[in-house]
């Protein structure tokens, strides 16, 4: 059974390794995933649990970004995660802070596309490790009334990201695989966030003690 710990902002913090099997199979908490260039990446273990769409809509990770904006997926998402409860990695909150800065800079609404927030490692569109499975990537398809559907517009907003968030990464523009031409992909990398309320790692698995 899941042993929830109440996080300060209202969503339950859960240890993904203690979730029921169908969720563990979908989230692969704490497991290793290989990215498209062959690097091994350690998936997040701690998640926030969302019980309903109303809760997702009413819970903010940043002043202008509700949880609902990060969980809008489609039929390509793993089956258990298409219905509530849903889960987002804790680092999604860091992404929301970055997006809030971006929003402040552009001065208007920033829209994250479907399948453009958190996607589980089983999401069929990913095909390997992607920061989307860490909750640290966003596909922005629209800023205000402007659709990011051509290189000029995407490049303009990518420059803003680069100036504002120097450690963030934006996907190159172009038609090739792993490139983009109909949205701005920005991510913070493979960031894992472990809130203070989390139970922590099993010390038998990590026997290095500080002196």
């Amino acid at each position, binding site marked *: 059974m899941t042993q929830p710990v109440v996080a300060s902002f209202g969503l339950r913090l859960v240890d993904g390794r203690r979730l029921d099997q169908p969720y563990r199979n979908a989230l692969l908490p704490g497991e290793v995933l290989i990215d498209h260039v062959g690097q091994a990446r350690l998936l997040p273990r701690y998640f926030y649990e969302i019980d309903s769409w109303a809760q997702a809509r009413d819970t903010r990770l940043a002043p202008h970004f509700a949880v609902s904006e990060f969980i809008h997926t489609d039929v390509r998402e793993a089956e258990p995660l298409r219905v509530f409860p849903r889960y987002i990695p804790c680092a999604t909150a860091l992404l929301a802070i970055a997006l809030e800065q971006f929003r402040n800079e552009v001065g208007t609404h920033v829209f994250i596309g479907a399948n*453009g927030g958190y996607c589980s490692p089983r999401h069929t569109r990913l095909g390997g490790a992607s920061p989307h499975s860490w909750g640290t990537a966003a596909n922005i398809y629209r800023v205000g009334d402007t659709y990011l*559907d051509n290189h000029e517009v995407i490049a303009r907003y990518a420059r803003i990201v680069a100036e504002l968030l120097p450690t963030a990464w934006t996907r190159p523009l172009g038609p090739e695989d792993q490139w983009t*031409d109909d949205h701005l992909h920005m991510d913070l990398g493979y960031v894992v966030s472990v809130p203070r309320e989390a139970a922590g790692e099993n010390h038998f698995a990590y026997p290095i003690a500080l002196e």
Partner: protein
Amino acid sequence: MTSRARATHPVPPLHATSELHACFAELQTKAGARAMAVSIIDLETGAEFHCHADRWFHAASTIKVAILLGVFGAIVRGDLLPQSRVHVRNRFLSAVDATPFRVQLDRDANRDVHREVGRTLRVSELADAMITTSSNLATNLLLDIVGLDAVQHTLDAFALEGIELRRGVEDEKAFEHDINNRVTARGLASLLRLIGEERAFNVSASRQMLAILSAQQFNAGIPAGLPRGARVAHKTGDISTVAHDAGLVYLPGRTPYVLVVLTEWDASTQGRSSTLAAASQLAYRALVGDRA
């Protein structure tokens, strides 16, 4: 029945094959069409009439009936639910070399689906848009989700010949390389017969497909050649050089009949819809009209 389509000469019955052939040939000549194929299957008597029914035509949007069958195949298999959400994204890969292409808004009869880019629509909403307003964007989204091979497998499972699905719609590079979806009148008629006889997977799935086809909003073809009270579950197809209509015609007190009319034209020739309507009227009168 429209006054324009009202006949002045008796029309031979369905079994008078040669005479009926001559009627359709005359219609083709008068209209200036390059080619015309017709298939009629009376589901009440089992009688059939076929005119150039094995000639291949560019499918245009009639291929969407085959994709609809494939979508319901995925639903029946449990791969999809009607309420499953699909990301509306206008980016597809060409059948030629997998380079990306988009469905142009000004070449799509349905603008509503384009307004949802970035969000999601249900499979049922996309299926409805694909058929009733011939949304090209909805068509490619559904084909992406179901898979071209899965749709073709469904067609094969029903032993449906005369329908070749090779790509999504609006794939200009594929068109330039002559990679096109193709149909014959007999092939489309067999598919519509399957649905009309409620043998497409099961009665429920068949009726759902019929309901979608019955909500067709482009009615200048087959329906325009029929008397009031007729209901048509159908799909049109129209590009620069072809104009088609394929459907099931429901008349009061009668089991439906299948009618497929495929036509090919010079790009500048006018009068396509009225020709489809006139062919529909001929088929109607061959079956019931002159004896009603």
